[in-house]
């Protein structure tokens, strides 16, 4: 099960760009992706012609049954490369969930093996217009959905509601504890100019008053669907030293996976935690580093309960105690672990794991501006549930 990452710190992130995050952008997603990719390439001090690799995970994360149209509702690596007028040596898409960690892994592997010298990794997220995001008008349940939709079990809120209630019941957690997560995410998102929630912090009472959709999940436990694109440029560490920005090195990565057959979108709490322990061990084996040395753990928060699951499975607090850890100020950027210092998905909009990766990059390259945390040296960017996702370790120095 163990194995060290032979390319530790041999690949670095050297530039980025991020579009403004909007509920419904006035331009197509493809147009925003093109502009964002070009900005990231320029930010890295490179020219378009130097890019010879593209990676992404292009899934439209909705249960609403929307058509996936390349350049409109999704943007694949090949679409982006073609529209940039390039004929890259390497273009690939990550097929699973955890697209942020997965797409970075593909990019790192391509650079480390020499399959490409300069890779653009991007993520484009879309909010289809004129329909509710997850509403699905199906009247017949075929394939995997036949096992759950006829019972009314459907969509990601019920999916996350079951393990969250399992957690609440098992450990006696309160809604007041989770309010801390939301207040922290939105306070940090409010400081980020491109965030959908820029200048819109909330109070604990706002959270407690939010409409409950799938009890115990309320509106504010969910990130809001948006249009937005982020792009990053990765290259080999020796090439990175010749470029204008301080490189941020990839120190390791890990994925978790499902071990046993389950009903569609059935995520028992113990499945999530078991995979989370795998991810933690694999990260340490891969990097040779202890997770206790991570001073910038950017945990995934597309649904707020993931903060508890990641905190506990990665060992930042004891199993069953994340709710108390959070309530005692444990994840406050001021004085606690900066788990949501980048605002997360709850504080930015449904950008998947982009806020987590971007915060690692900005802080560790010293580009976070007035939000700079001077002490940060080792960051972790998580995406998705541990059992359908992964995490990437970033270092400010080559180790």
């Amino acid at each position, binding site marked *: 099960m163990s194995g060290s990452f032979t390319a530790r710190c041999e690949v670095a992130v050297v530039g980025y760009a991020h579009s403004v995050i909007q509920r419904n952008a006035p331009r197509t997603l493809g147009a925003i992706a093109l502009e964002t990719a070009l900005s990231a390439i320029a930010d890295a001090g490179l020219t378009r012609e130097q890019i010879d690799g593209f990676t992404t995970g292009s899934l439209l994360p909705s249960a609403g049954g929307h058509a996936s149209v390349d350049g409109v509702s999704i943007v694949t690596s090949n679409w982006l490369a073609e529209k940039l007028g390039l004929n890259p040596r390497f273009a690939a898409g990550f097929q699973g969930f955890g697209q942020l960690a997965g797409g970075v892994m593909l990019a790192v592997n391509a650079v480390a093996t020499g399959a490409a010298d300069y890779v653009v990794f991007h993520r484009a997220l879309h909010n289809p217009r004129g329909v509710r995001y997850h509403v699905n008008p199906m009247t017949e349940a075929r394939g995997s959905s*036949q096992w759950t939709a006829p019972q009314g079990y459907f969509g990601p809120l019920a999916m996350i509601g079951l393990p969250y209630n399992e957690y609440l019941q098992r450990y006696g957690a309160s809604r007041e504890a989770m309010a801390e997560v939301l207040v922290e995410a939105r306070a940090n998102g409010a400081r980020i100019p491109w965030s959908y929630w820029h200048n819109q912090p909330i109070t604990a009472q706002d959270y407690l008053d939010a409409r409950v959709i799938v*009890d115990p999940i309320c509106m504010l436990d969910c990130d809001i669907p948006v249009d937005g694109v982020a792009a990053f440029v990765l290259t080999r560490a020796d090439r990175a030293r010749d470029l204008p920005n301080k490189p941020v090195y990839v120190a390791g990565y890990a994925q978790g996976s499902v071990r046993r*057959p389950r009903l569609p979108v059935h995520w*028992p709490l113990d499945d999530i935690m078991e995979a989370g322990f795998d991810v933690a061990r694999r990260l340490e084996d891969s990097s040779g580093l202890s997770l206790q040395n991570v001073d910038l753990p950017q945990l995934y928060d597309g649904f707020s309960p993931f903060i508890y699951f990641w905190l506990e499975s990665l060992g930042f607090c004891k199993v069953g105690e994340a709710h108390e850890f959070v309530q005692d100020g444990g994840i406050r950027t001021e004085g606690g672990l900066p788990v949501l210092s980048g605002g997360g998905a709850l504080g930015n909009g449904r950008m998947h794991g982009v806020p987590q990766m971007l915060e690692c990059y900005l802080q560790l390259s010293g580009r976070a501006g007035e939000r700079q945390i001077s002490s940060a040296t080792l960051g972790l960017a998580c995406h998705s549930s541990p059992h359908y996702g992964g995490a990437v370790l970033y270092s400010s120095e080559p180790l």
Partner: protein
Amino acid sequence: MSDLVRQPIPVPDEQSAAFWSAAADHVLALARCTHCGTRVHPAGVVCAQCLHPEPSFEFTPVDGRGTVRSWVVIRDSFLPGFRDEVPFVLVDVELDVQSDLRMIGRLLDGPDAALSQGDRVVTVFEDIAPGVAVPGFALEART
């Protein structure tokens, strides 16, 4: 409600026909690997337990009793056919027949039923269309 927003009707296929046929008769019949005897729900195309190269499953009746591991209350359904049904409770049940064999269904005791982890339930069936019944659960009478 018009037919356009009816609740989703399961469409049986090769892997599921025996399950839905038994359900129509209000019998819970779960797939069982004929090689190693492991139950699996939903039925798969291979047995994850024994990995037999010639997979073969039989659907035999099981005791539908089990234990509540978690639940949610649907207050706003993303399936339009359930909008007239909200609020309703979905329970995540570990069936007695095999350790960690889980099934999710509606709890037919209504949205106000007091629930705890470990509560005992029995499988019951809802007839949702002619010849189509869907398994759900009801709290076992407390003694």
